[in-house]
């Protein structure tokens, strides 16, 4: 609300629309420009109409599209200046639409018209077209598009044409009635372009885009498409007259939605949104509108849960929810209390906020602030502040990435005081991701004139719990204050102040907890809460309420010098308070992210501090003191600055402010960008090259990969709380076309595939053998089916056919991965190849019986051998081992104890007894106790299996098959040694995937099972190994029967 008063006083002269004095544009000039534009458009369209193998069609080459767009902008501009009155207005609107299209073209935004939500760069293909014509057309199209791809010149010319058209229309604008002097002043302030400042802003924005692309921050979609849309959008938006900027922003926002979801799904999203907004404006009493909106909400909730089938893709839910779940409440509140005027464009801008399309977690922007602060100050200062926040967002995200990659540890790794402290602090600091994203989105909104206040304010420097609540998410606190706290407190104003304060604060935290669940319901489609969740919000609420009471009383005790003359003692106390609050918040956070209270309690079961802990933690403590002291000094500085900083700023100060803000931000952006270039950091800091290379990649951390590999996240339904990055990957399905492709490939008919229900194909027994594939699933023609014995395999008789070699294979999920069709699983491929290339000199037939099952560990495999395999009288046993088998077997034994499953082996019973495992013990503790016996356990399993084989004249062969990701490799050497010592023939298939792009061999970013191609690679390698080592296919000596 710092209206530029200096500008107001300068507007005594007659004011013309948009700050421009009207100039007479001769009609002939308009006609000439229109003619030129029309000619360019026609030529570009003609050039794009070409023979594409089967017929003449539009190739939609970038050059042609850009020139057509630029030409049409000139045409629209020329026509507009010649038109009178309302027609001229129509021309201006046409130009705005063309400007939005030009931005889409400049940013290379692909438009997908198909019903699914996957983006594509080309026109859709008609499946009914003959195959050879389709191929021919595709080849022509590809050649045409490649010839003109990445053509910055045509884009530049297009933007020049567009700029010329806008300039022409602006300079010929007639004066229109203005509403009032303030509005005029605001318009003038917001509308006057300054080329040098614009160039400064645009260059900084461009560098920020490069920076985000360099570091792959946020997501490829955001970095390479949405940020380019913002870059070119800002370029055009800056020069548009004020009255057209909001509509243009809405067009950009809708373009971003189309870019992400495709035309069909975006239309659904916008239609639902418009319906909800429309309900808020129904010409009925306000009290009736609220239940109507609530009813619409309930209807959508039923669709979200899946009680009814929604005709739109699930992919739009998180973004639709993010746009409306809180903003509708704020909007209705604003409507009810008339907090701000509502216009068509302001409503659409408010709900379809441009950056929201890629951020399901979005700040709760207040409508009144959003409206009130639109271009409420010097436009260049607003934009520059936006760039500063975007830069801060980048810094937060980089810090987050470093912590996520290198500092965070899993609960299982907490085995000392040092690691406990590391766990507590690093997991809390993962909030940097959220704060980075929030700074980024608010910064983007400032670029388009929405002068929103700061969203977070150095929350790590909070010196009290109320201070933390005030700093951590300012928009949420304001939302709660307006909608919950004040209404309750004022209603209870006749109560004693303490009681009403306590009750209002308690309700705020209760509702905050409930709304977190509400938020995740809309984003995930299911509601869940837990003991740690409730405990976290309860304790947080209690400490903030207590702090609020303390603050209320302490305010009355303030001395006249407090805050202005701080002694060293006061600074030290402030520092201590900051450290104390930070510690308690870290502690509370660790409760919140725990999967259970028992897990949290078990974290504290660490040995007493050692000298090593002291050595490691002392520097950490000193660093903490330094950071807290910085916070205390910063607070002191703010207080000493006092009210002086709040005084109104004259225009001269504003001039200085722009430079003062632009210079350091610009310099910091340039410095960071240079430092991110491999050519520079490779020379300056060669030791850090590997780290910086890794920092430039967006991926899951080693800790998360390892936890995924060990199945830690398998049973966690609230992964968003434990790990936001992983959660986002789970929700990335729409951006991962291979997922659906794989699913269709695996199971186009039987419908057995769904994202979360792999367990429906399994039978959970209460016996030691555990989980088993259900028999007779699907038909034999289905790509996913099981035989009568519960194998993903052909149907075999129990008795081997005469003259055959029967191999029984036990393994884990990679061998039966549901994403791969039965006949493409590597055991089947190997069996088919052995038979197809069989010369029948030794065996009539080869059979490989696949006894593998998902989640099977070494313990499961032992049980499978003894209970399922032996009755089939195999000649050879293939034991397929994978990395992490040791860890997984320990976890399985802990699970067996926890579930009270009977243990049929003396050794295991003794091990349980020796390690003191009890059924009611926390699973983490059990695992920790079993860990030292990991190798012993594996050794026992291997020896037991070899003994079973020898007793039944079966040749035991051990295949070690690696993961696609280097996970659990630390166990490899032990497994190979123990298997060899136990008496297996050992085949090490490590390196089987070397030379292949690992990313093409698994389904998505969190599922690393080999896909069809991966299985083919394994089958090839294994077949070659068998051919080179014929002894691997030899029966035990007593069994060999030559034909």
């Amino acid at each position, binding site marked *: *609300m710092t209206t530029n008063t200096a500008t107001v006083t300068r507007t005594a002269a007659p004011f013309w629309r948009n700050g421009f004095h009207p100039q007479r544009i001769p009609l002939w000039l308009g006609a000439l420009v229109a003619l030129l534009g029309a000619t360019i458009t026609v030529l570009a369209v003609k050039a794009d109409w070409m023979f594409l193998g089967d017929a003449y069609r539009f190739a939609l080459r970038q050059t042609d599209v850009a020139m057509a767009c630029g030409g049409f902008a000139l045409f629209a501009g020329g026509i507009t200046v010649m038109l009178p009155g309302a027609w001229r207005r129509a021309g201006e609107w046409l130009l705005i639409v063309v400007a939005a299209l030009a931005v889409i073209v400049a940013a290379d935004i692909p438009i997908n018209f198909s019903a699914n939500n996957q983006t594509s760069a080309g026109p859709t293909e008609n499946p009914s077209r003959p195959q050879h014509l389709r191929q021919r057309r595709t080849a022509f199209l590809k050649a045409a598009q490649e010839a003109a791809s990445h053509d910055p010149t045509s884009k530049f010319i297009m933007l020049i044409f567009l700029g010329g058209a806008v300039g022409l229309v602006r300079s010929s604008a007639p004066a229109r009635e203005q509403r009032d002097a303030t509005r005029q002043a605001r318009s003038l302030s917001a509308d006057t372009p300054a080329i040098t400042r614009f160039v400064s802003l645009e260059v900084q924005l461009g560098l920020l885009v490069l920076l985000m692309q360099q570091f792959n921050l946020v997501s490829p979609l955001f970095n390479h498409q949405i940020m380019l849309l913002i870059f070119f959008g800002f370029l055009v938006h800056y020069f548009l007259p004020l009255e057209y900027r909001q509509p243009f922003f809405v067009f950009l926002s809708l373009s971003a939605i189309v870019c992400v979801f495709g035309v069909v799904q975006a239309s659904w999203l916008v239609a639902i949104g418009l319906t909800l907004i429309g309900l808020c404006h129904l010409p009925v009493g306000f009290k009736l509108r609220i239940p109507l909106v609530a009813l619409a909400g309930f209807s959508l909730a039923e669709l979200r849960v899946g009680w009814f089938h929604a005709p739109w893709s699930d992919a739009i839910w998180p973004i639709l929810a993010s746009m409306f779940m809180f903003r509708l409440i704020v909007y209705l509140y604003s409507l009810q209390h008339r907090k701000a005027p509502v216009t068509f464009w302001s409503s659409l801008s408010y709900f379809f906020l441009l950056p929201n399309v890629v951020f399901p977690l979005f700040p709760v922007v207040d409508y009144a602030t959003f409206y009130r602060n639109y271009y409420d100050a010097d436009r260049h200062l607003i934009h520059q502040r936006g760039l500063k926040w975007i830069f801060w967002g980048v810094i937060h995200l980089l810090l987050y990435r470093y912590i996520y990659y290198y500092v965070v540890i899993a609960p299982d790794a907490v085995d000392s005081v040092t690691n406990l402290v590391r766990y507590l602090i690093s997991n809390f600091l993962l909030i940097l991701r959220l704060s980075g994203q929030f700074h980024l989105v608010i910064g983007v909104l400032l670029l388009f004139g929405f002068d929103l206040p700061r969203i977070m304010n150095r929350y790590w420097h909070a010196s009290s719990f109320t201070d933390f609540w005030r700093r951590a998410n300012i928009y949420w606190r304001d939302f709660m204050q307006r909608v919950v706290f004040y*209404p309750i407190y004022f209603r209870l104003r006749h109560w004693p102040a303490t009681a009403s304060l306590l009750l209002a604060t308690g309700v705020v935290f209760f509702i905050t907890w409930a709304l977190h669940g509400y938020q995740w319901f809309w984003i995930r489609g299911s509601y869940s809460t837990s003991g740690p969740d409730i405990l976290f919000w309860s304790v947080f609420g209690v400490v903030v309420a207590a702090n609020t009471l303390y603050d209320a009383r302490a*305010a009355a005790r303030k001395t006249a010098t407090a805050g202005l003359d701080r002694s060293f003692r006061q600074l030290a106390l402030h520092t201590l308070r900051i450290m104390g609050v930070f510690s308690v918040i870290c502690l509370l956070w660790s409760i919140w992210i725990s999967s259970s209270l028992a897990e949290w309690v078990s974290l504290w079961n660490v040995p007493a501090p050692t000298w090593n802990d002291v050595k490691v933690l002392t520097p950490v403590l000193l660093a903490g003191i330094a950071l807290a002291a910085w916070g205390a000094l910063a607070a002191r500085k703010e207080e000493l600055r006092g009210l002086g900083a709040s005084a109104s700023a004259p225009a001269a100060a504003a001039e200085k402010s722009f430079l003062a803000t632009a210079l350091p931000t610009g310099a910091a952006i340039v410095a960071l960008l240079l430092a991110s270039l491999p050519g520079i950091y490779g020379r300056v800091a060669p030791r850090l090259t590997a780290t910086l290379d890794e920092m430039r990649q967006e991926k899951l951390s080693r800790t998360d990969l390892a936890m995924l590999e060990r199945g830690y996240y398998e049973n966690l339904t609230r992964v968003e709380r434990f790990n936001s990055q992983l959660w986002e990957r789970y929700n990335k399905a729409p951006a991962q076309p291979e997922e659906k492709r794989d699913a269709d490939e695996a199971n186009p008919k039987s419908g057995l595939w769904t994202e979360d229900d792999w367990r429906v194909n399994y039978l959970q027994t209460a016996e030691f053998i555990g989980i088993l594939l259900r028999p007779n699933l699907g038909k034999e023609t289905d790509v996913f089916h099981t035989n009568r014995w519960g194998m993903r395999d052909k149907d075999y008789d129990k008795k081997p056919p005469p003259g055959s070699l029967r191999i029984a294979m036990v393994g884990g999920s990679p061998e039966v991965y549901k994403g791969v069709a039965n006949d493409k699983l590597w055991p089947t491929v190997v069996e088919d190849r052995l038979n197809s290339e069989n010369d029948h000199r030794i065996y009539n037939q080869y059979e490989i019986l696949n006894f593998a099952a998902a989640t099977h560990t070494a313990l499961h495999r032992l049980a499978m051998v003894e209970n399922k395999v032996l009755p089939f009288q195999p000649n050879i046993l293939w034991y397929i081992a994978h990395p992490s088998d040791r860890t997984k077997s320990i976890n399985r034994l802990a699970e067996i104890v926890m579930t009270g499953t009977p243990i049929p082996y003396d050794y295991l019973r003794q091990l349980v007894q020796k390690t003191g495992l009890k059924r009611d013990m926390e699973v983490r503790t059990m695992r920790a106790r079993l860990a030292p016996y990991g190798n012993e356990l594996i050794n026992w399993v291997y020896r037991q299996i070899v003994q079973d084989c020898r007793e039944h004249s079966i040749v035991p062969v051990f295949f070690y098959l690696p993961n696609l990701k280097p996970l659990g490799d630390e166990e490899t050497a032990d497994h190979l040694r123990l298997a060899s010592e136990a008496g297996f023939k050992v085949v090490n298939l490590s390196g089987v995937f070397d030379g292949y792009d690992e990313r093409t061999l698994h389904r998505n970013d969190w599922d690393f099972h080999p896909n069809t191609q991966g299985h083919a690679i394994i089958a090839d390698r294994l077949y070659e190994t068998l051919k080179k080592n014929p002894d691997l296919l030899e029966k035990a000596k007593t069994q060999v029967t030559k034909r």
Partner: protein
Amino acid sequence: MEDIKSTIKDYILKEFLPGEKPDNLTESTPLVTGGILDSIATLKLVSFLEERYGIRVEPHEADVDNLNTLNDIERYVQSKLPNA
């Protein structure tokens, strides 16, 4: 008119800005957006206004629109007074 502003200014200086020079608190100093009035301070100010001027402040009125500057507060109080 000046009475309202000066009374409120005195109150704010005494309660929320002890030790601050009175000249620094101008008519346009932002109180809410400047961080001088947090939620608790806002409640105290509202209680003061209600008691001092006999007005009733509604929950949605205790916001930046009405309480951000001394000018805003004066305008708001005047609008709530019976003879406004």
